[in-house]
């Protein structure tokens, strides 16, 4: 079989080789570069989408956070208000209760004092009567006779005068 010379130029072979390179270029472009680049583009899009989704979610979370923080702050001030108003109310009420109690106590004391006075007076009157009775018995015994009512009264009056007590009411 024949061989080419080591160096031999052939126009048609050159042309064929040129076309071969063009052909390989087209093959690589069509079957390797474009599918891979399409896929890379898709992947890029997917990644971008995920990033934007994440950013959106973050934004939403941030706004939610701000909202809830505001709410929390409001709630704190509200609680403070409620507490202070409750405290004020309680103060007023306590004041009321104390003053009422004081009034009542005063009344009770006054009543008690009045009752004591009455008792005292009663007791005094009784004691007077007792004394009169006893003194009547004693004088009777001492005199050896019965004393009449008149005597009795006289005697008693003088006696009382001697003690300096107040008027009897019988």
């Amino acid at each position: 079989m024949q061989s080419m010379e080591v160096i031999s130029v052939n126009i048609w072979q050159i042309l064929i080789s040129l076309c071969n390179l063009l052909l390989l270029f087209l093959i690589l472009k069509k079957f390797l570069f474009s599918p891979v680049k399409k896929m890379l583009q898709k992947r890029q899009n997917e990644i971008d989408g995920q990033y934007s989704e994440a950013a959106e979610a973050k934004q939403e979370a941030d706004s939610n956070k701000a909202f809830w923080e505001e709410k929390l702050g409001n709630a704190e001030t509200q609680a403070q208000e409620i507490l202070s108003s409750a405290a004020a109310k309680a103060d007023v009420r306590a004041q009321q209760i104390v003053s009422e109690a004081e009034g009542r106590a005063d009344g009770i004391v006054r009543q008690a004092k009045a009752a004591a006075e009455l008792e005292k007076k009663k007791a005094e009157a009784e004691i007077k009567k007792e004394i009169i009775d006893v003194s009547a018995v004693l004088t009777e015994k001492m005199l050896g006779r019965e004393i009449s009512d008149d005597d009795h009264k006289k005697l008693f009056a003088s006696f009382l005068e001697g003690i300096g007590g107040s008027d009897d009411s019988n």
Partner: protein
Amino acid sequence: MKIKSVKFLAVDILLMILAVAPMLFGIALKILTNPASGGIEIAGARIYFTLKLPIQDLPITESQINSWLVIFSVFWLCIYFTHGISEKPQTKRQLIAEWIIETTEKLVKGNMGEYFSGFAPFVAAILAISAFSSLLTLIGLYPPTSDINIVAGWAILVFILITYYKMKCGPVHYLKSFGDPVPFLAPLNVISEVATPVSMAFRHYGNILSGTVISVLIAAALQGLSNMVLGWLPGVLGEIPFLQIGIPAVLSIYFDVFSGCLQAFIFAMLTMLYISSGFPAEDYKKRKNKKIKSEVN
């Protein structure tokens, strides 16, 4: 990772077979048509048949056939790489495909700028066809890159591209550029313009061919040396060229693998540099702005 369906695997295997088949075909063709030859032989590509064409007859040679085989292989490899491609990588080969594309695009953008980013597939094609053609020697086939016609075709295509981009500002601007920096240097500029594709073609072709020639010469020399030094061994032992073991393999790593890949890379680099440096970007921008302005007016 998902367990791939039987159909997917079947298509995979089919694609791999299709990618390897051209190489096997080439080897078979070589074995069938190549008569066993002894001794040193440095010749061009084997001619299978000749087509009668005007101007010059077209001999269909090994280099033609082999470059078509390379194209077939690369085509099926592309299909294989992009088979089952998805946004979430499920196959290792998808990562390889992405790596190839990202690397070539980075290379092209780095060397040629953003304007030429569409050149990535072209540069990848140059790298692929040149490297694979040179690497065909590894399986014993004739490397098309050691045929001047093949490489000249690529160089001429690159030259056409260079000239096309130089003419982007119009033919007048292109012709004026020859009178740069002083008009009487124009002949030299014309020569340097023509020298570009010639030097590219000869550099690539010469490197690969010289590698083959040196390999053959050294193999022959080693055989002679082996006969001389170990010829006293009795019987068959004396005829075995022991010195041919090992040394040609090391040389093959340099001349076939390293030199082949390096020349492919150099060819691609030169393509990128010539095209991007030949393109008068500044003038083109001015011209474009002027056009836009005149259209507005």
